[in-house]
C-alpha cells in the first residue's frame, strides 16, 4: 500500500505538471490565434480610417475638391511620408501613381502647391506604412499644368478608365475605383524591406491560380484601369490547396474608394458652396435694398447660365452677361455677308454698330418675328434721326420694343440686319416666361451686306439682363463661388428652384416651396448627380441625356419633376435609379 501511495503522488505531480504545461500551451496558442485575429481587425480598422481620412482630404481640397495626392514613392530616395509628384506625362508612367499613402503635407518633390497632409500616419498591425494607388483622372497633370475636371459626369464618362478591384478568383468587384489603399502585412517569401527604399515588389504581393490566367498582382500599375486584388491571406491556405499555384504567398489587405463614393461627398461640398453663396446673396440684398430675395434661375438646356426673369427653376445663374455677348464682323469689301454663331438662345437685344459714316438711309422699324428679324432705323429726321453724314460710331439697338440709337451724330445712315434663327426660341421678350424651355439650340446671326456695300459694321445678339435684380456669383452681392465650382461645371449638376415670391421686387413673406413635409421653403438646390443610363428608369422610359431642356433628364422622381413647388424630402435615400440629393437653402 505505501508503495502504491507513493507512486500515486508521483503520478499526481506528473499529471498536474503536464496539465499545467498543456494549459499554458493552449493559452498561448489561443492567444496567438486571438492576436492574429486582433491584428487583422486592427489592420482593417486602420485601412478604414485611412480611407475616411483620404476622402476627407480630397473633398476638402482648397484648389480642386476631389483631387487626390500623388503617392509617396521612393523616387526621392526614401519614403518620407510626402507626395512625390511626377512632372512628365503619365502615359506610359502609371507606376508613378503607386506608392505609399502620403501622410505628411503633399509638398515634396515637384509638387508646386503646399497643402496640408492627410493628418495622421497610418500603419498596419505589422508596422508598415499603407500603400496607395490612385486613378489618373484625379491627380494634377504637371505635364500640362492642368487640374482634372471632376464632376458627376466623370463617373460614367471618365477621361481615362477607372481602376478595377477584383476578388481572389478574378471576378470584378468594382470597375469604378478612384483609389486603393493596401496594407502590405509582414514580408513574405523573399521580400526584403531593409534600407527604407524597397520598391513595391518587396511590400505588395502577387499570386497565380492553378487554372492559369496570368499573375494577379498588386505590385504593378501599367495602365489606367489597372487591376488590384482582394486576395486570400496565405495563412489560411494549405500547401495542398488546389485553387492557387504553390507556393502561395499573399497577405495584402485592401480597401478602395469608388468614384461614386467620392462624388457623393463632392456633391455635398458643391451644393454647400452654392447654398452658402445664395444665402449670402439674400443677406446682402436685404442689407442694401431692405428686401431679401434670391436670383432667378437660368433655364435648363442653355449653354449660358444667365438669370432669366421669372424663371423659377433651372440651373444656378452663375454667369452675368456682358454686352454684346456675341458679335459678327462684316467685311463688305470681300463678302456679302458674315455669320456668327451665338452660344445662347434667349435674346433681349440685337445690336449693331456702324463704324464708318456715309450710309444711306432706308428707314424702317424693328421687326421681331420668330423666324426672321430685321432691324432698321426708322428715324430719318430730327436730332435723333438715323441720317448720319459724318465719320462716327453709331449704335443701333433692336429690342422687343423697337429700334433705338445711341449718340447724336447726324448723317445719312442705314442699317439692315437680318437675323435668321435656325431654331427660334418661343420667346425673346425678357418678361414673357412661359415655363417652357426656350433655349436648347444655338442661333446664327447673319449680317447682310447693305447697299452701298462699303461701310463696315459689326453686330450680333445679346442677352442683356438688367443689373437691378443683382448679379449672382458676383462680389457686388457677396455671392462669389469658388473658381473650382465653374471650372468643373458644377452648375450643370445642381438644379435650383426659388419660390415665386422670393425673387426681385418681392417680399418673400409667403414662400411656397415644400420639401418633404417641410413647407415654406424659400429656395432649394437638388444635386442631380450623373445621368441615369441603365434601367430601371423611373421617370423617363429611356436613358437620361444631358444637356437637355427636359427636367426629366436631370431629376429622378415624379415629385421632383411634376413642375410644381413640391419636392422629395432631404433624407430620401438614393438608389441606382434615383440619385437626387436635396439641400434646402433657406430657411
Amino acid at each position, binding site marked *: 500500500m505505501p508503495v502504491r501511495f507513493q507512486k500515486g503522488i508521483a503520478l499526481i505531480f506528473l499529471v498536474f505538471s503536464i496539465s499545467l504545461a498543456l494549459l*499554458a500551451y493552449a493559452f498561448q496558442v489561443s492567444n496567438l490565434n486571438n492576436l492574429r485575429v486582433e491584428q487583422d481587425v486592427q489592420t482593417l480598422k486602420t485601412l478604414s480610417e485611412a480611407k475616411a481620412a483620404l476622402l*476627407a482630404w480630397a473633398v476638402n481640397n482648397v484648389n480642386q475638391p476631389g483631387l487626390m495626392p500623388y503617392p509617396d514613392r521612393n523616387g526621392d530616395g526614401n519614403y518620407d511620408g510626402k507626395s512625390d509628384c511626377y512632372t512628365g506625362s503619365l502615359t506610359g508612367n502609371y507606376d508613378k501613381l503607386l506608392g505609399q499613402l502620403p501622410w505628411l503635407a503633399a509638398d515634396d518633390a515637384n509638387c508646386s502647391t503646399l497643402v496640408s497632409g492627410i493628418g495622421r500616419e497610418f500603419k498596419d498591425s505589422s508596422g508598415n506604412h499603407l500603400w496607395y494607388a490612385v486613378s489618373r483622372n484625379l491627380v494634377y497633370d504637371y505635364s500640362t499644368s492642368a487640374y482634372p475636371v471632376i464632376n458627376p459626369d466623370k463617373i460614367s464618362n471618365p477621361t481615362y478608365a477607372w481602376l478595377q478591384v477584383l476578388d481572389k478568383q478574378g471576378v470584378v468587384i468594382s470597375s469604378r475605383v478612384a483609389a486603393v489603399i493596401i496594407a502590405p502585412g509582414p514580408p513574405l517569401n523573399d521580400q526584403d524591406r531593409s534600407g527604407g527604399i524597397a520598391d513595391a515588389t518587396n511590400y505588395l504581393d502577387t499570386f497565380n491560380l492553378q487554372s492559369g490566367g496570368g499573375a494577379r498582382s498588386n505590385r504593378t500599375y501599367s495602365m489606367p484601369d489597372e487591376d488590384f486584388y482582394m486576395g486570400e491571406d496565405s495563412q489560411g491556405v494549405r500547401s495542398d490547396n488546389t485553387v492557387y499555384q504553390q507556393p502561395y504567398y499573399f497577405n495584402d489587405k485592401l480597401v478602395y474608394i469608388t468614384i461614386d463614393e467620392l462624388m457623393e*461627398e463632392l456633391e455635398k461640398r458643391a451644393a454647400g458652396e452654392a447654398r452658402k453663396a445664395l444665402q449670402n446673396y439674400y443677406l446682402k440684398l436685404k442689407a442694401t435694398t431692405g428686401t431679401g430675395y434670391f436670383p432667378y434661375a437660368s433655364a435648363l438646356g442653355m449653354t449660358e447660365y444667365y438669370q432669366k426673369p421669372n424663371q423659377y427653376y433651372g440651373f444656378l445663374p452663375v454667369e452675368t452677361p456682358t454686352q454684346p455677348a456675341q458679335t459678327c464682323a462684316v467685311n463688305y469689301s470681300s463678302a456679302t455677308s458674315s455669320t456668327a454663331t451665338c452660344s445662347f438662345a434667349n435674346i433681349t437685344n440685337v445690336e449693331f454698330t456702324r463704324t464708318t459714316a456715309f450710309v444711306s438711309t432706308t428707314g424702317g422699324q424693328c421687326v421681331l418675328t420668330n423666324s426672321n428679324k430685321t432691324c432698321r432705323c426708322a428715324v430719318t429726321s430730327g436730332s435723333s434721326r438715323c441720317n448720319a453724314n459724318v465719320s462716327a460710331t453709331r449704335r443701333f439697338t433692336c429690342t422687343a420694343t423697337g429700334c433705338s440709337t445711341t449718340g447724336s451724330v447726324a448723317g445719312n445712315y442705314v442699317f439692315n440686319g437680318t437675323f435668321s434663327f435656325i431654331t427660334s426660341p418661343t420667346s425673346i421678350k425678357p418678361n414673357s416666361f412661359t415655363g417652357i424651355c426656350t433655349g436648347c439650340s444655338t442661333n446664327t446671326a447673319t449680317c447682310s451686306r447693305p447697299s452701298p456695300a462699303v461701310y463696315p459694321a459689326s453686330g450680333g445678339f445679346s442677352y442683356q439682363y438688367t443689373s437691378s435684380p443683382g448679379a449672382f456669383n458676383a462680389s457686388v452681392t457677396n455671392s462669389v463661388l469658388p473658381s473650382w465650382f465653374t471650372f468643373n461645371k458644377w452648375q450643370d449638376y445642381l438644379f435650383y428652384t426659388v419660390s415665386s415670391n422670393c425673387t426681385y421686387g418681392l417680399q418673400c413673406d409667403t414662400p411656397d416651396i415644400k420639401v418633404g413635409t417641410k413647407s415654406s421653403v424659400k429656395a432649394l438646390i437638388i444635386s442631380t448627380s450623373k445621368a441615369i443610363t441603365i434601367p430601371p428608369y423611373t421617370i423617363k422610359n429611356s436613358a437620361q441625356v444631358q444637356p437637355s431642356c427636359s427636367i426629366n433628364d436631370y431629376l429622378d422622381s415624379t415629385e421632383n419633376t411634376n413642375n410644381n413647388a413640391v419636392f422629395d424630402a432631404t433624407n430620401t435615400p438614393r438608389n441606382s435609379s434615383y440619385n437626387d440629393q436635396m439641400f434646402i437653402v433657406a430657411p
Partner: protein
Amino acid sequence: MSMRRNLTSKRIIFRGFTLVEMAIVLVIIGLTIGTLTATISAQVEHRDLSETRNTLENIKESLLGYAMANGRLPCPAQTPGTGIIGVEYFSGGSPAGTSANGLCGQFYDGFVPAATLGLSPANTSGYILDAWNNPIRYAVFDLSDGTVSKDLLTATDGIKNANINGTSTDASCSTKSGMEFVGCMSLLYVCDASPTAAAGDVAADCGTATSLSRSTSSRGGVVFVVYSTGKNAATGGTGKDEAANPNSNSTNNDPVFVSHDPSGSGAAGGEFDDLMVWVSPNTIFARLVQANKLP
C-alpha cells in the same frame, strides 16, 4: 541482521521523491506558472491598452458627432474637483464664455467633457476614465477670429462664419473665409518629439521635431487632440515628451503636443506611454459638410 536488511531494503523501496526529483518538478511547475503569469500580465496590459484606445476612438467620434449636431466643438472640462464638473468649461472672464462666443476656460489643459457629450461610463465627477482610472484629456485649438471676441472652433457656426468680415490679422489667410480660412490657419501641433530644451517649457511649434500633421513647422494642422496619460500617470509625465502633454505632473499649457510609440526612461525624450488621437481640419470639415453645417 537479515531483518534489518529487509527493513533497509523496504526503506529504499518505500522511499518518496528525492530532493532532485522534487526540485525538477517544482522547477517545471514554476516555469509553467511563470509563463502563465507573464502571459496573463501581458494580456492584462494589452487589454488595458486596447480598452483605452477604443475609449479614445469613441470620444473622438463623440466629439465629431457633437460638432455635426451643434456646429461647434465643446470646450474642454476643467481640472478635476468636486461635484459634477465633467462638463464643458467656459471662460469666466469678460466677456464670459458662452456657446455663442466659444470662449473656453481651459483650451489646452482640460479634460473630456463626458457629461456634456453623454459618454459613459463616467465617474462621479462626470469624467470618462482610461483603463488606469485617470481622466482622459482633451484640447481644442484656441482660434480667434481677428478682432472679434470669439473662438471659431468652439462657437456655434464659428467655422462657417470664420473671417467673414475679413478681420483676421494673419495676412496669408485674411482673404479666405469659412473652412478655407480655418484650414489655412495654424492650429494645434502634434510632434514626434518635444521641441523644447527642457521638460514642460512652452513651445510655439514643432521646431526641429517632425510635425505629424504637416511637414512644415510653420503651420499646425490639428483641430483637437484626445489623450490618455497612460499607465504611468501617477509617477510619470516629467520626461520631456510626456511633459509636453499637460498631465498631473506637468502644467505645460501650449498648443504643441507629442505623440509617438512607447519609450523607456532611457530614451531621449524620457519615459513615454501617452496614447493620443487627433483630428485634422479635413476630417471635421467633411463631417460638417455631411451634416449640412458647412460650407
